[in-house]
């Protein structure tokens, strides 16, 4: 008898757990239904099942945000559900490696940023080769970066900054969000462009780095507009320049590095889509067409504008343009990183 009542208690408890999980299910699937599962008419052949977009960085980060923005319109165009999956680790190389080893059938797609071109220089035994292990689908967006400093940092302009850091090279500190992060790469390029070697202070991500910059613990850094524009417009940090050939709409008063006299400092966090090498050409073409359609979507344009960026022009959302960009960037960063003597493993 005792055993029976015990098992009944167990059953009740499992029922409670079930109710809680059902509540979770309702919240989960209800929302997904409203937002994600866009299934339209298929065009025959590919795609016949859900497509997974692998983001090799954490959810909620800039790359993840961009991926989720384009996933919906792409899903609508392709007529299949797109599932975004985060596989972070080791500067994006874990997720990239997973996709490189995946079936080349077009159902596993990688979204990667500038890190694709820097990983071979930073990591040994990568397990994949950017140009050979992947088939490029197209570029997505190029996020501009900004050079910012603590607000009481003496230099008033980018030119002043270069003169100042040269004169005080042993005292100035340059923050970044960790080895291989966009802010680290931009900082390396700044040092090369300015011809100076500075003391770098790495942080675990942008948040803590920016916190110490606002708090005046470190002198300056270079980071994506996504992260800095709020602090810039509030006057919490001093901004010197934006690192793209054109000014950014959300920060109209900020000169470009070329205008400010340091044209060598040109860098953007470019994003692209990849599939494993060996994926059939017509599948790649379908993905690329869907990407183009998504980038032309006004909603995507608006959302990206809020991030301080914009979709690439249609001719860049192609495998050819993407391949050219990757080749050029691989060469650039191999040199910059070798010159700086950085090695992640």
């Amino acid at each position, binding site marked *: 008898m005792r055993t029976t009542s015990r098992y009944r208690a167990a059953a009740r408890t499992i029922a*409670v757990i079930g109710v809680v999980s059902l509540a979770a299910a309702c919240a989960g699937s209800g929302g997904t239904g409203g937002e994600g599962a866009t299934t339209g008419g298929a065009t025959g052949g590919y795609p016949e099942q859900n497509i997974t977009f692998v983001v090799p960085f954490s959810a909620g980060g800039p790359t993840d945000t961009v991926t989720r923005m384009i996933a919906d319109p792409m899903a609508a165009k392709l007529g299949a559900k797109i599932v975004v999956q985060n596989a972070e680790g080791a500067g994006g190389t874990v997720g990239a490696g997973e996709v490189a080893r995946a079936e080349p059938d077009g159902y596993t797609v990688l979204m990667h940023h500038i890190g694709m071109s820097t990983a071979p220089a930073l990591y040994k035994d990568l397990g994949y080769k950017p140009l050979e292990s992947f088939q490029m689908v197209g570029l997505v967006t190029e996020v501009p970066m900004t050079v910012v400093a603590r607000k009481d940092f003496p230099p008033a302009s980018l030119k002043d900054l270069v003169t100042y850091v040269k004169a005080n090279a042993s005292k100035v500190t340059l923050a970044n969000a960790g080895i291989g992060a966009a802010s680290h790469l931009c900082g390396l390029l700044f040092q090369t462009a300015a011809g100076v070697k500075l003391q770098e202070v790495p942080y675990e991500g942008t948040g803590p780095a920016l916190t110490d910059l606002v708090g005046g613990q470190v002198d300056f850094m270079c980071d994506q507009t996504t992260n800095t524009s709020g602090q810039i417009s509030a006057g919490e940090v001093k901004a010197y320049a934006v690192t793209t050939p054109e000014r950014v709409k959300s920060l109209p008063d900020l000169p470009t590095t070329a205008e400010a006299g340091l044209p060598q400092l040109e860098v953007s966090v470019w994003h692209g889509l990849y599939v494993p090498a060996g994926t059939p050409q017509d599948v790649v073409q379908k993905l690329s067409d869907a990407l183009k359609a998504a980038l032309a979507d006004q909603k995507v344009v608006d959302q990206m504008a809020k991030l301080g960026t914009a979709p690439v022009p249609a001719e860049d959302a192609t495998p050819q343009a993407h391949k050219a960009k990757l080749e050029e960037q691989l060469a650039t960063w191999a040199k910059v990183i070798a010159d700086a003597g950085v090695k992640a493993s």
Partner: protein
Amino acid sequence: MELLDNLALGFSTALLIQNVLYCFVGVLLGTAVGVLPGIGPTATVAMLLPITFSFEPVTALIMLAGIYYGAQYGGSTTAILINLPGESSAAVTALDGHEMARQGRAGAALAAAAVGSFVAGTVATVVLAVAAPPLARVALTFGPAEYFSLVLFGLIVSITLARGAPLKALAMIALGVLFGTVGQDLYTGTPRFVFGQRELYGGIDFVSVAVGMFGVAEILRNLENEHTRTAIVGKVRNLWPTREDRRRIVGPILRGTGLGSALGVLPGGGHVLASFTSYAVEKRISKRPQEFGRGAIEGVAGPESANNAAAQTSFIPLLTLGLPAHPVMALMVGAFIVHGITPGPNVITEEPALFWGLIASMWIGNVLLVLLNLPLIGIWVRMLRIPYQVLFPMIILFAAIGTYSLEFNAFDVYAIVFFGILGYILIKCGCEPAPLLLGFVLGPLLEENLRRALIISRGDASVFVTRPISAVLLAVAVAALVITVLPAIRRRRETVFTEEE
């Protein structure tokens, strides 16, 4: 009365029907994931983030925040019932909370945790509303040197988490710090102690260590004497705290709330320290320190209050400066951006309805949580009646699934095995696991800030004593070490003598 106007604006926003609804969904989900081992608030927020893209911004943020502090509530439930902490703060709750459950007082422990959390949440909401901007400025004066000293202080304080020999506790803390060094070195990118496995580059997962050292080790302990011991839990004595309990938890709740509110503001790991600093304080000032670790209700009420207060004030840097103090908040920054709000100091002036609405919703969320949790206590306590032959496979299976689901990384599951066996042997040898867990959480912060402070000071170690806040913290740390170790030695001598008589 500007504050009253602001609060009126906040409550008129937060009390909109869809906001209350999603606040409830948020805290309910938070409680659910807090209760389940493995899946934490960060993973949940990450999964639900895209769903919130279609909401109003304030609704989205209310729900995400609800998940975060709701999980702090839920986490203590698992810690108390089955000795399985999902977060470092819950490891402290498990010490006395699970001991109380074993004595049949799980209901009292859960109620103390819920009431403490509610009081703390209410006070912290007021702190947020009244003093957020100036507190954020104070937090910014903390640089790497200050954080190093603060973390060192925290590590020394965590000796008090053990009831046994301080020497062993110290060794366990240091061992935890050591395991924290596994993974890619932040400063050079060098992978350390990873045996060539890329999956280990991100370090060992906290959940694996906690599930192994607490969950698996505990199960093995319970299976030792299967033939002589039938039930792990004594008869459930009373569901609610007694009058004596209620009297004993008032002080700890108030002190914990104060400590937590203050520490939570610091973005470099302050909220991690809140719960066990509170535990140490309660143990030190208690007239019955020997009860701690053996089911003292103060050891549940204080840390739980501190933890919840800190969870809420840790929103201060995010809300006033746009600077995230926790991975969940980094995700919320993403939510801000997606909704076209640039996170930063301007949110307060440009989006007052959002700012004050979110603050008001936290209090509403706390009310909902207490309404949700108090009736659940009866059900949770009944869960202890599940026969152990069903309960322990459930813990192991759910822990494995939960841990795996974090990163889809089988290494996190293998790590459970390693830490389970290691923990089991060490516990059998009289070494308690809680200090190791805290060393593991705080170790990376210790190293990071030590090295960063030295880079910024050009290798001059005197920064730690020339910067005033850092110097004070170091002095307090040394004092804490002295008063913790000295009486312990004396007391131990006494017990040795009494035993020998």
